[in-house]
């Protein structure tokens, strides 16, 4: 294939993709706002709970309380979802360079004074965050002989291990006392750096049984972050088969590659209903469905049931028993505080064992996310 052909193929992508990209927001500003909100929320104290990092990964089963001042020098490392909260005194005294999958943090003034600028690791280096392409416990990391420099074990997740390696060689001019003092002071402060894991929902394999056949399918955590007083939510999505989109203040999960004009609708809709309890919400929605039944739209509307295993209310609506008759399952989850998540699974009867089962596997991972749940910090 040549690049012109590829460009033509890109030209034929899904219209929805083209339309979505028509007007793009200022993502950097959005991120900054999110970060400020998070830091303000955890300004007083942050109670960290037990967290696990998916299949084959480690568990940080420690409960720690840390204090994070609202205004801090922070450094976000893209791609590895880590934020470093640096000592305030580092302001203007450090730079970061990405070196492959790794990040090198150095003092630019010292680097400029002692190096020829050709090599990234040849002066002023304070530490490097190295990403190893394998999930290792700290013991395995040592067994593999990778502890060749002083280090700080950060985490293992998604078949990768992140280690903070301290600089090993002399990175300053020993004849320059001022340089040495600055460097040594910064080195001594490295242990005070807080490292925050931004992604609480790393990918994981979930057992799904479409058409009765069990398969392990990788699901990716999709998070709607808490906003103002309202909590957010997280749900694992099989992104090989489904895409997510926000429309009219609802969050939808729909199959990839299905004709959007098809009358055979398959989708999951997550709607936040604030200021209404789950019982009231369930009754109100069911009343609407019953009105639809009287008008001939629905064949049956079940009573509201309480699922105590997952703690949710639900009822089922059916258009009939023909292969293409519409089915809707309405679920109601309590929000933290006053409010309800109303989740609807829509599919047609013949898709019950396919999309229906896959929707259920995703739905079972649904969880409310509060500001206290995120971010997480790795203990020193």
């Amino acid at each position: 294939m040549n690049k012109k052909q590829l460009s033509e193929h890109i030209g034929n992508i899904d219209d929805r993709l083209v339309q979505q990209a028509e007007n793009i927001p200022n993502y950097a500003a959005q991120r900054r706002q999110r970060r400020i909100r998070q830091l303000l929320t955890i300004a007083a104290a942050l109670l960290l709970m037990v967290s696990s990092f998916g299949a084959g990964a480690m568990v940080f089963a420690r409960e720690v309380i840390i204090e994070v001042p609202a205004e801090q020098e922070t450094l976000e490392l893209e791609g590895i979802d880590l934020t470093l909260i640096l000592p305030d005194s580092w302001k203007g005294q450090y730079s970061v360079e990405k070196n492959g999958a790794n990040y090198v943090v150095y003092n630019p003034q010292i680097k400029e004074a002692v190096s020829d600028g050709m090599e990234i690791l040849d002066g002023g280096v304070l530490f490097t965050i190295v990403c190893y392409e394998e999930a290792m416990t700290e013991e395995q990391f040592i067994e593999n002989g990778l502890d060749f420099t002083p280090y700080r074990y950060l985490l293992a997740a998604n078949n990768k291990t992140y280690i903070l390696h301290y600089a090993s060689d002399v990175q300053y001019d020993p004849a320059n006392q001022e340089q040495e003092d600055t460097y040594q002071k910064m080195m001594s402060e490295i242990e005070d750096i807080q490292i925050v894991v931004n992604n609480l929902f790393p990918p994981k394999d979930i057992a799904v049984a479409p058409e009765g056949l069990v398969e392990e399918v990788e699901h990716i955590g999709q998070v709607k972050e808490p906003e103002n007083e309202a909590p957010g939510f997280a749900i694992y999505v099989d992104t090989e088969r489904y895409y997510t989109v926000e429309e009219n203040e609802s969050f939808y999960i729909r199959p990839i590659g299905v004709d959007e004009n098809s009358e055979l609708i398959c989708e999951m809709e997550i709607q936040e209903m604030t200021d209404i309890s789950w019982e009231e919400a369930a009754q109100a929605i069911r009343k609407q469905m019953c009105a639809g039944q009287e008008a001939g739209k629905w064949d049956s509307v079940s009573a509201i049931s309480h699922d105590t295993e997952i703690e949710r209310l639900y009822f089922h609506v059916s258009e009939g028993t023909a292969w293409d008759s519409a089915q809707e399952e309405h679920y109601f989850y309590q929000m933290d505080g006053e409010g309800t998540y109303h989740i609807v699974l829509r599919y047609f009867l013949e898709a019950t064992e396919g999309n229906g089962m896959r929707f259920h596997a995703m739905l079972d991972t649904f969880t409310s996310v509060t500001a206290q749940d995120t971010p997480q910090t790795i203990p020193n």
Partner: protein
Amino acid sequence: MVEKPYLYSESSFHNNTVGETYVDDNRIIELYWQRKEEAIQETSLKYGGLCTHIAKNILSSHEDCEECVNDTYFAVWNAIPNERPNRFSAFVSRIARNLALKRYEYISAAKRNPSAVYSLEELGDCVSGTDHVESEIEKRHIETTIDKFLWQLSEEKRNIFIRRYWYFDSIKSICESTGFTQSKVKSMLFEMRQKLRKRLESEGIEI
């Protein structure tokens, strides 16, 4: 009938100013079906800015852009009685893109917008560059693979990719819209090109 007005800004592709409203897309399509020339006026009013933006990203000459946009309206005029596009803006802009790229093929290098030249060059990372005639089935498979690849990216990355390789926006313009630094956008695009190449290969597509 009418949609809520967009506020005019530099980043907006639409033509109207504060307070004006647009005719609904379905109504415009209906006008095309009724063969009313008003359809072209409404298209121009609502999507002229978007078409010009795309044409300008590909062609550097003002005259070429203008002709391309006018050709787009006529192409839409000819196409619509047979079609009823669901997403009219994407439909119109795709025609503008295709026409601008056709023109790009036969004009001199000086008349090509460097943004499109670099954008196409970058796509070279994803393919071997060999000429290979693709069957319709192969084309469909490739396009489905690209669709899936894009849907699986985060919204941020997906939109940046599309702005660069569909709309041919310059890196500078993407940075202005997203607030990201040039190095960040470049590294995101680089990473996505590598991933796309791997995905095409893993799908058995001859790259």
